[in-house]
């Protein structure tokens, strides 16, 4: 892997973000809007019906973390879709750029974008709703890492599927994470799910990140159990995602899809 080619991919997406209003909207508008909405809602819950302040922390913390997970997963797939929409794939892959360099560049630039969105949401939550997530960051970072790894695994599988089935399935880029939200226990604890769904939830790294987050925010400290479970699950999903992507990319080159995707 060559650093200058990874940088080139990052620079390409930074230029795109600067000139494409959709990308700016994705990066800042939605995370901030989510916090505004949930912020007003939690204010109502706290002042209006006297809900415990702890629950309000959970809701705002979950909104910030889910925003990071969702935007990273979406931006991985949309970054690739940008190449399809602009018919740039042949130009890119007729250079020495390898697929692993391309994916690494996408990960780095999207981490920065998701980080910016999350920071904007966190600062707004602090400034407007007196919810300061920053003191908990040391305990939350391991869970954030698991969220990013899982978002990457999903993003790479969706990108692979777009390679194979073209833009016909591009809606997955925006919708797939939503499918996982109900069973990821973002806003409620695992025990509140119906029994038959708990097994599914248990197998998702997102569930362990949100369970861990709730423990941290309630002052119970860092949960190695939820972190390691999430990491082990991620290792499995990561390996499966890479295997699927390699298979699909090689099949796309065999079928000539790389030059027909446009």
């Amino acid at each position, binding site marked *: 892997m*060559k650093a*200058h*080619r990874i*940088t*080139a991919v990052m*620079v*390409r997406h930074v*230029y*795109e973000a600067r*000139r*494409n209003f959709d990308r700016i909207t994705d990066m800042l508008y939605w995370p901030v809007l989510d916090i505004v909405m949930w912020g007003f809602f939690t204010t109502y819950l706290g002042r209006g019906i006297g809900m415990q302040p702890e629950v309000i922390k959970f809701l705002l913390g979950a909104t910030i973390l889910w925003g990071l997970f969702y935007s990273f997963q979406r931006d991985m797939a949309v970054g690739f879709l*940008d*190449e399809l929409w*602009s*018919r*740039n794939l*042949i*130009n*890119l*892959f*007729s*250079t*020495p*750029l*390898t697929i692993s360099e391309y994916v690494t560049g996408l990960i780095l630039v999207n981490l920065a974008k998701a980080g910016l969105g999350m920071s904007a949401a966190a600062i707004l939550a602090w400034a407007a709703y007196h919810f300061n997530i920053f003191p908990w960051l040391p305990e939350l970072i391991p869970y954030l890492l698991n969220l990013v790894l899982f978002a990457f695994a999903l993003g790479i599988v969706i990108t692979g599927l777009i390679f194979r089935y073209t833009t016909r399935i591009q809606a997955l880029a925006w919708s797939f994470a939503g499918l996982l939200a109900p069973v990821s226990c973002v806003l409620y604890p695992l025990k509140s799910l119906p029994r038959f769904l708990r097994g599914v939830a248990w197998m998702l790294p997102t569930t362990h990140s949100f369970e861990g987050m709730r423990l941290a925010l309630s002052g119970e400290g860092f949960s190695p159990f939820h972190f390691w479970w999430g990491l082990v699950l991620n290792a499995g999903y990561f390996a499966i995602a890479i295997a699927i992507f390699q298979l699909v990319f*090689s099949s796309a*080159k*065999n*079928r*000539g899809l*790389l*030059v027909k995707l*446009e």
Partner: protein
Amino acid sequence: MLVQVENLTKRFGDFTAVDGVSFGIERGEIVGMLGPNGAGKTTTIHMILGLITPSAGSIRIFGRSMATHRDEILARMNFTSPYVAFPFRMTVRENLDVFARLYGIRNPKRRIEQMLERFDVAGLRDKPIARLSSGENTRVGLAKAMLNEPELLLLDEPTAYLDPEIALQVKEILLEAQRERGMTILYTSHNMAEVEQLCRRIVFLNRGRVIACGSPIEVTHAILKEERDEPALEEVFVRVAREARA
């Protein structure tokens, strides 16, 4: 040989797009690859670029196999086609900057400016690609293709959208690069007069196979099967295209 293609075959299911194609290109040669639509030119070029995996056969460039030395080979070559686009919101300069970084060019700003001047698009450097005409886009594509001073350049109908004056200018730049740096060019075009002017050798494809290979006059003799004093590639092309449709 700088490029050695042997028994190259590409099958898509039951359809054979390229069928046992073999040819070589010497360093510094300009070779034309001709053939009617569906002859297998673009598929062959895409296989040379590593964008499509061949079903059989081998491609060696700079003495190395494309299957095992892709990155090393692609760093020394380049490609352009007016049918391939750039990210349309980004400006000309931003697009060229990305490609300069991909090729690891030293002093990219200077090189980009040189290429913009050379292809007469310096005034468009801060314009988004979306606002360029087809001809301007083609010239930006050519500027991209020359950024890394390639030893081998693959050009797919590079003058398709250019007016005759700019097309002439492009041909002069290509010939100059070939003379000064010994650049090797594989060129596809539907403009037979242009191919006769530029190319020392022609590889003529039809239905995925090489049906003639040699100088323009040799290809004319081989396909028309009659003695001619001058190359007649236009006539050759029409004959092959009609037979292909029949």
